[in-house]
């Protein structure tokens, strides 16, 4: 009986040591920007990465956000952690968070917050980079969620700010390969005709769901 308890103790000790070693390895991999090592750990590492993100300062959070971006694995924990910084004034962190969000989630709340940043953020840079995130990083969206994204972009074509109209049209062009004749600085009547063409297109898209 004593030998069994000893064995159990050894097993538990080894297990805990291995667990501790793994945790250190993840932190080291993040610190070293060793994305291949993190990939080798598999998607189950995402909740731990989210905790690492939440525990760090802004510089550290930016580093982990970039790791999320490069991994591209869906994770509710990662999304929740990143969403807390989606309005941060820290430029580097904000851009990394905006880019990473779409790559860890399949969620219209992410689309909505990026659309809001694209249209309403006080800084042109943040608006512009939110558009970039909408153009390239919404990699997990379902077809219905894509309709939601397109709806928001088409609505932004009517924005009074020229730069918002420009970047919204650019996102639509990247997403669909088309512009439907929309010119962001064109006369209002011509823009209205193009927006109507986009709306008809969206109706057809929706009908295919």
């Amino acid at each position, binding site marked *: 009986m004593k030998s069994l308890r000893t064995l159990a103790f050894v097993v538990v000790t080894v297990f805990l040591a291995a667990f501790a070693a793994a945790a250190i390895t993840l932190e080291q991999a993040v610190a070293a920007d060793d994305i291949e090592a993190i990939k080798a750990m598999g998607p189950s590492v995402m909740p731990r990465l989210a905790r690492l993100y939440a525990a760090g300062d802004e510089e550290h959070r930016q580093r982990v956000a970039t790791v999320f971006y490069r991994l591209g694995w869906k994770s509710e924990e990662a999304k929740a952690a990143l969403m807390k910084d989606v309005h941060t004034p820290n430029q580097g962190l904000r851009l990394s968070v905006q880019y990473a969000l779409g790559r860890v989630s399949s969620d219209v709340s992410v689309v909505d917050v990026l659309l809001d940043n694209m249209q309403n953020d006080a800084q042109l840079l943040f608006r*512009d980079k939110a558009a970039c995130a909408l153009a390239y990083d919404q990699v997990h969206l379902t077809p219905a969620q894509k309709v939601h994204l397109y709806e928001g972009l088409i609505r932004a074509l009517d924005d009074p700010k020229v730069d918002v109209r420009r970047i919204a049209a650019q996102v639509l062009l990247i*997403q*669909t*390969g*088309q512009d439907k004749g929309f010119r962001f600085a064109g006369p209002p009547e011509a823009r209205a005709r193009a927006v109507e063409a986009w709306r008809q297109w969206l109706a057809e898209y929706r009908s295919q769901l």
Partner: protein
Amino acid sequence: MAGRIPLAALALAAIFAAAAQAAGPTVLVRYGFDDDAVETGPDTFAVFRAAHGRVGLSTVFRRSGYRSVEIRDVPGNGDFSELQGYFPEQRTGHVFAHFALLTARPEEELNIALAGPQRFRLGKDGIAFWLATREGRFVHVSDSIPKKLAPVRGFVWYEVDVAYDVEAGAYDLTIHEEGKPEPIVALRNQPGAARQRGSAVDVFSFISDPTEDASDVTYFVDDVSIATSREVTVPPLVAPGRRKLFVDAFAEYRRTQDEKVRCLPAISLRDFGIEGSGPLGARGITLLEEALRPGGPGDGGGALPAEDARGRVVAAAAQWREGCAALESGDAPTALDRFARAASSAPEGRIYGLSAVLALLAAGRAEEAEERLGAIASEWTDDPRFAIVAARLAVARGDAAGALETLRPAAEAGDAAAAERYYSVLFWNRRWREARDFAVAAARHPSATHTAADWLERAGDAAFQLGDAREARELYEEAARSAPDQASLFLKLSDAAFVLEDVESERRYRERYYGTLREP
């Protein structure tokens, strides 16, 4: 409206194409995978086999004959299995595509596309036709909208016919299910994938799931044909998988410089400092293609996070494209400025330094050009474009005979820069025998410890030009022994083996690059 061409028409096209002066339609490529015409190469197709996946010949299922191609992928491996085929670019007329398809797992995604020089992105000259299976149904992407078609059944052959009207950017699509007399899909005049008029096509792709990496598909493809309504002459394959040998590619580069100083083409990601497509990823590749497109954005890298190293690579490529446009229009100072900015952003991109040499040459600053060329020589020794530029420079600095006289003593004494220039002038002036002898001597020179392989490759090039493929092969093989990863050597070895009718070696060397449908 795209006129429908039934299978019989394709069959007829195939027969007519056999004649040298065929009246259209013309078959551009056709693969039944039964005969020996399954050689990969730049003018046939390439095979990308993902880890744990498969792209290879199969006798398990076939629509005709006794073989098809099996494409299998597994999710989460970060890679995709793909059969990607090439045909001469079509910018007018109708393009007819036919293939047979059987999937073992209808619920798993697969994708098939016809695309143009912008490759697999939505937009002009990108994807023109896109058929997929999603959640057990056929789907075609038309007008940028995934549109549902008929359900897909497992282990049933489907015959797919597409008649794509290039100018209209629209197509007819017919899908027949094995055992059913009526088509399960019969669509007319559908807008192309991104509703783009005049969207050219020159490539087809059978792939698993290139975005989510979630597909566990296994499917089979047979009887692939691509034809055009136009009466065109398709150059014959001069060797397995290719319509020209590397020596012809060299001649083309040279012709570009004969007229005036202009950029030499970028031919690989390595030119931009990228080793393989992995580091760029699909988005990076898209941005790079966008940056290189005439009229593309000036700062494609701005679409990436500031800390993303791909951003500066893409931005540098955009600068390079602008520089080339300036050089083409005779504005050497602007070209030089753009190449300098590109090199500053992405110093690992070797094309920027070479292009700067050309811009200096165009600006009449031959001495500086020579200095720059010397500084980048070590990055280019395995590439014929370097020889072109070096020779162009040598000739620009004076008459060839004078240059040779001046250079010879230093070159023979082991001065690396003089040797490079001396060889280049010999090669430019088609003095192959002297070029070969000099390169062999340079390879044996005590100072050539680290450059022996490069000199042996040059000697092989000259020997090849002399018509001595056997000697060329020996020289390339000797070079390869000390530089086993030098890419250019293996395509040249493939050419030499072809000329020497060594079928096995030709195939072995070529397939190191383009993959194979045969089991490794």
